[in-house]
């Protein structure tokens, strides 16, 4: 039977078991929305901005493991996805983004709402394609889902010209997909596994370094097993945090420029660094020449291009983390490394990641989140809020964190939480955001209200773009250039110190929340932290915004100053 392209689009979504579609209509997508009208099997979510939309699809995908699906119109609808596409692709999140496009006959004519979205997104997604022929539509959609979710997951953009949406053609949808240039590797080189385990089994001072790849391949249990059999301490990147429970004895902490002293020192002094699912990003290596300089490095990664790019590797293993870990477990045995484990424990005890100050510190707020929520998805925004969250959240199998690690996209946290809550209606969803990032997608409060999402939104309000301000304080002689969120025209020029007389913060987050129909609680005293979180947890109909007024110049510590080696850390702020 012949059906329109739009009808085939809906059929394809169903064939791919898409139950939720994040979608914002427009002129060149109107036929697709028409085909979705009255469709019971697909929950169509209408956010308030396409950027919020794509982050929501991202949060949905990360928290459920399913492919997140977006549908927007051409031109501005498509370009508003760009930041979210880059965010998701950078963190290997499977998304398929459908964009409406002007009819094929008008492409290249500078038509109304025409942009070359395939050209724009080519370098920030896994695959981007325009459908030029109706008969290719089914095959391309099938390919899109396959590419997005296999191998190193990523974003696929499918551009759908309006005439293709309207044209009649076959209703067939392929069962199989065959792409000659794309063969996700499903094998593990046993010789390399053997070499790796021989190296590990003879190590005196080994560590595991675990990245987001382990979580993406859902290998948390296997990773824990491997760590427990061998007894080798586990360090994570921020994307890998939670791969084994953060309270586990073998867990050392995060590596990186805001990593723990114990983790960074252990990496610097280890003799075998066994890394799985990390690309050795500059934020974790510090000065690369001195990174794990005395160690033999084993690197498991699904992406061959990640291996020996930033750090030269001795034993490369190109494989999916879960498959590799399964094979590693077969050859794993307990190691005799008592002295080394004790040494790391000593460093942990001596230099714990903590904020000692009195008052309502971010640490106390995040610890209260740990206590209040047992089964939760916690999203973060980007900046100090994110770094504190990655330092203090106790993550485990039941508590996962979604964060924009690669691109570092402010405005990610709140819409991602919306997607996570839609995908996990029974789970508590908590946002840890700053006052800056919260304002970048604040319009999604309406989305949270209309879909009755009981999200707990913790805004750590210090009235600054805190992370940049911290750098200005530490490395730019306190020149607070464009980082004060309380600045007004009447302020003195070149202000570099907050005072009692600083202008009032705008907006008033509580009134703003209330204007949307959400609940708003302002917390200024540490005693109010737990009651506020409890109230939020029990508020099941609408989101709750908790604005925590924190110290304006709180810093994230420890820190590795730029261009320094990983173990060259500043441990405490000067004033503490």
């Amino acid at each position, binding site marked *: 039977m012949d059906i329109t392209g739009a009808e085939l689009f809906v059929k394809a979504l169903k064939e791919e078991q898409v139950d939720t579609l994040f979608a914002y209509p427009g002129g060149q997508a109107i036929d697709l929305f028409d085909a979705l009208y009255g469709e019971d099997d697909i929950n169509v979510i209408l956010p308030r901005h396409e950027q919020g939309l794509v982050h929501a699809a991202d949060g949905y995908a990360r928290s459920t493991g399913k492919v997140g699906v977006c549908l927007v119109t051409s031109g501005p609808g498509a370009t508003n996805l760009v930041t979210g596409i880059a965010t998701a692709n950078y963190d290997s999140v499977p998304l398929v983004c459908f964009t409406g496009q002007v009819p094929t006959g008008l492409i290249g004519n500078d038509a109304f709402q025409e942009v070359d979205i*395939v*050209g724009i997104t*080519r*370098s920030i997604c*896994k*695959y*981007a*394609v*325009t459908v*030029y022929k109706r008969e290719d539509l089914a095959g391309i959609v099938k390919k899109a889902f396959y*590419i997005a979710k296999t191998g190193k997951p990523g974003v696929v953009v499918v551009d759908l010209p309006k005439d293709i949406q309207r044209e009649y053609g076959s209703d067939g949808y392929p069962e199989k997909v065959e*792409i*000659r*240039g*794309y063969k996700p590797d499903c094998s593990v080189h046993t010789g390399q596994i053997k070499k790796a385990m021989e190296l590990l089994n003879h190590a005196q001072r080994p560590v595991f370094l675990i990245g987001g790849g382990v979580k993406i391949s859902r290998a948390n249990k296997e990773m824990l097993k491997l760590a427990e059999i061998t007894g080798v301490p586990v360090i994570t990147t921020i994307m890998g945090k939670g791969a084994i429970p953060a309270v586990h004895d073998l867990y050392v902490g995060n590596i990186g420029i805001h990593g723990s002293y114990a983790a960074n020192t252990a990496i610097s002094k280890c003799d075998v660094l066994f890394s799985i699912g990390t690309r050795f990003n500059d934020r974790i290596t510090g000065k690369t020449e001195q990174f794990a300089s005395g160690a033999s490095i084993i690197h498991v990664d699904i*992406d*061959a*291009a990640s291996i*020996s*790019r930033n750090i030269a590797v001795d034993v490369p293993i190109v494989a999916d983390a879960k498959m590799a870990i399964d094979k590693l477990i077969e050859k794993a045995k307990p190691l005799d490394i008592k002295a080394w484990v004790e040494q790391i424990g000593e460093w942990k005890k001596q230099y714990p990641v903590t904020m000692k100050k009195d008052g309502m510190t971010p640490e106390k707020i995040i610890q209260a989140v740990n206590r209040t929520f047992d089964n939760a998805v916690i999203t973060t925004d980007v900046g100090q809020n994110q770094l504190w969250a990655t330092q203090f959240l106790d993550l485990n199998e039941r508590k996962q964190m979604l964060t924009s690690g690669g691109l570092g996209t402010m405005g990610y946290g709140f819409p991602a939480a919306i997607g996570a809550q839609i995908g996990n209606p029974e789970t508590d969803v908590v946002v840890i955001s700053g006052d800056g990032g919260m304002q970048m997608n604040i319009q999604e409060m309406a989305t949270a209200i209309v879909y009755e999402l009981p999200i707990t939104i913790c805004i750590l309000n210090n009235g600054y773009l805190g992370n940049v301000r911290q750098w200005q304080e530490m490395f730019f002689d306190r020149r607070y250039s464009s980082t004060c969120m309380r600045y007004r025209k009447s302020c003195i020029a070149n202000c570099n110190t907050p005072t009692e007389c600083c202008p009032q913060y705008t907006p008033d987050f509580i009134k703003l929340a209330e204007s949307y129909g959400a609940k708003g609680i302002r917390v200024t005293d540490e005693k109010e932290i737990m009651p506020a979180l409890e109230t939020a947890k029990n508020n099941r109909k609408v989101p709750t915004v908790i604005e925590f007024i924190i110290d304006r110049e709180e810093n994230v510590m420890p820190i590795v100053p730029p261009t320094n080696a990983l173990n060259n850390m500043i441990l405490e702020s000067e004033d503490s």
Partner: protein
Amino acid sequence: MKKRWLCLFVENEIGVLAGISGLFSGKSYNLGSLTAGVTEDRTISRITMSLTSDDRTFEQVKKQLNRRVEVIKVVDYTDVAIHMKELMFIKVSGCSAKDMEEIFRISQIFDITVMDYNRDAVLIESVNTENYNNDLIALLGKCFANRIEIVRGGSVAVEALSITDR
């Protein structure tokens, strides 16, 4: 730093070439020359490209190319026996009778063909290696300074059958 050669088999689709050249500019790789053409299989294009890089960057280039969905195969031609030729046209204008004689003499010694000429200009075709063409440009540039127009096609290459030299 070393000059390298790659042969790519890619899907013959819209945007594939843009994707590959975009990869080079986006990642700041140094692309020397690139030629593309359809193969005996209409759905596949074959690209010959040259680039100059260190070993580590070259490994990345190959991996990044392999990573692309539209790239079917990447073959490193840097150190294998291949036949490689570049088509080049050279137009020399403002020629006197003596210049003409000179050019025809050069064409007897060098492996080039005079394809066309009129009263004061000569059009030469050279199908040779890139280095040979470089030398030819140097020579003609000296003899006929500011009077030559060059069109270079970029090299195409194919694996050798019996010869082992490049």
